[in-house]
């Protein structure tokens, strides 16, 4: 059974935000407009956090792409009263939208704040509604949604490989954020396979987990910035 994971090289991330846009397009994440965004209703399954170091003019900007860390010991899972948030065998934190009743407990328990609530029914400015991805369900008002590691692409590739009677190749599955990352800061793959690129990067001496002390056992490894 594969264990999906990701590595994010902070030395390579230039904060362009292509991953955020690609994620919105791939996963049918509705945009909420500037007013609602200012009221904290924006839903970015992946975000690029910016931190500044030093005083002007000697300032350094640090970028950190943060998506659901697909924790091995996820605080969001035990608190959900309806099993909407649950763990899959291949190490994903799945969110079943149709089971969610919207207690928002999972989002409170999440130390990374990567879970988003649908405050209104989704809508798109014309003609954006015609670009919706048919592989991803839309979420109605009142449910939580979050990064899935593009589970539709994972399942699609698995089915394709099975149909062709072969094993999945490393790097064959690319979530939208990974695919769109020009500097190749994000790498996705199977952590259970020690030969995969993501396994190799995760073992790097630069590798750190975000908020590791909380004990969440994230599947995402950040490669610390050296430059």
């Amino acid at each position: 059974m594969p264990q999906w994971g990701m590595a994010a090289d902070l030395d390579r991330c230039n904060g362009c935000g292509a991953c955020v846009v690609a994620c919105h397009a791939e996963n049918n994440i509705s945009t909420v407009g500037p007013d609602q965004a200012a009221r904290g209703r924006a839903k970015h399954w992946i975000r690029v956090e910016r931190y500044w170091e030093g005083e002007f003019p000697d300032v350094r900007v640090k970028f950190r792409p943060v998506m659901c860390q697909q924790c091995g010991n996820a605080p969001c899972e035990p608190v959900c009263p309806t099993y909407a948030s649950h763990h899959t065998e291949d190490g994903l934190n799945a969110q079943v939208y149709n089971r969610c009743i919207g207690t928002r407990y999972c989002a409170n328990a999440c130390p990374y704040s990567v879970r988003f609530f649908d405050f209104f029914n989704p809508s798109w400015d014309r003609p954006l509604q015609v670009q919706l991805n048919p592989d991803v369900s839309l979420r109605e008002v009142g449910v939580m949604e979050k990064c899935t590691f593009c589970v539709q692409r994972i399942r699609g590739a698995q089915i394709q490989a099975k149909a062709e009677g072969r094993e999945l190749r490393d790097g064959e599955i690319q979530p939208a954020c990974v695919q769109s990352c020009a500097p190749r800061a994000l790498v996705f793959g199977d952590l259970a396979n020690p030969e995969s690129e993501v396994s190799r990067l995760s073992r790097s001496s630069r590798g750190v987990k975000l908020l590791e002390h909380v004990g969440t056992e994230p599947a995402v490894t950040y490669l610390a910035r050296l430059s």
Partner: protein
Amino acid sequence: MTDLTSTRINNDLTRPLLQTSWRFYALAAALGSIVLTALVAWMSQAYYGFGVTGIRWPVYWGFYVTSFVFWIGISHAGTLISAILRLVNAGWRRPVTRCAEVITVFALMIGAMFPIIHLGRPWLAFWLVPYPSERMIWPNFRSPLVWDFFAINTYLIGSVLFLLLPMIPDFAVVRDHSKGLRHRMYRVLALGWRGTPKQWHRLETAMQIMAIAIIPVAVSVHTIVSFDFSMAPVPMWQSTIFGPYFVAGAIFSGIAALILAMAALRRFLQLQAYLQPLHFDNLGKLLLLMALLWGYFVFNERLVVYYGNEPAEMAVFWRTQRESFAPLYWTMVVCNFAVPLVLMGIRRFRTIAGCVVASFAVVVGMWLERFLIIVPSLGAKYLPYTFGIYRPQPVEMIIAGATFAAMAFLYVLFAKVVPIISIWELKAGEHVSRESRPSVEESHLGQVQP
């Protein structure tokens, strides 16, 4: 109370049931319209979407969960006061118990609404009920919200029984004092009460069992409510002290609510002869005790966090201690500690007026306490990039505020249907021994039903 004859007790305490003035209708209409406004507000929230509230990323709980914890806390008035005082056989409890038990039932009903009001999809709230369904899944028994569901329902059933049992003999008194439709209604409610020794014995036994059983239930309910917070890895939520801290706070706010309710009843139903300064004095002492206990818990919680010096916790700590939430925090400390300490600690101030002022302060302070546990922590959770501010919107304020009117509304209606002071218990207090309790000789047997 030796000057109170049995007949006068009957007359005084059944008067509010049998006579109704225009004031009752005016009050009920005013309170009812506030409750109606809140219902409209809730329907508009369901219709337009949850976005009409001020809930936002990352502060996903706000006024609704604050109100939930607050009202469940208020509900600890009844059981803890009434059950404990019954068990220790404190004679002065007699006029107080029912006022307290009613608060429990209504506060629980109001509190239990909030988890549904705050749901993103409230029409699916029944998924918390474990029933065999086509979905083939049970509720997640690891979730504190499911524990809540069971704890609150157990407590609600228990406290309704605890309230209803000692009402049976009183329904019989009203039955014997009324005619027509009222008579038929109370005849049903009295469940064929005759006042035979066998019936008295069964009632006493049942009350004894309920009084013992309800105490662990009450303690567990607010502990489980505190688990909603302490089970999540959120700064300043993960605290081993939350269980007893919440239970103590619940009893504290419950006593305050009871004092306010008693003062209102005394004034509006002319019950001066029954709810005496003695009762307020005794409850005032209890309030003082709980204020000290509350102060102890808060001091304990804060000092341990400060010395632990964990960065994420310190961010929340300073937010409440001296940053944006400091005005609310120090208001809470004044309301919950300074005011009751001064007013209830000095005998000269422990009058009815003093008790009412202190209780009002405690109710305000305890509401703030719940708010300050929930919102500052959620707004400053680990990653500074995600810090956020919560601004409550009108719909939340209307619904949270209207619950106070709902409580008053239910209370007013209840006092119209049921004697708000337990008639038979009061009479039993007039006699020396329990064996010579009023065996409903003079009135209950007056109109024996076939």
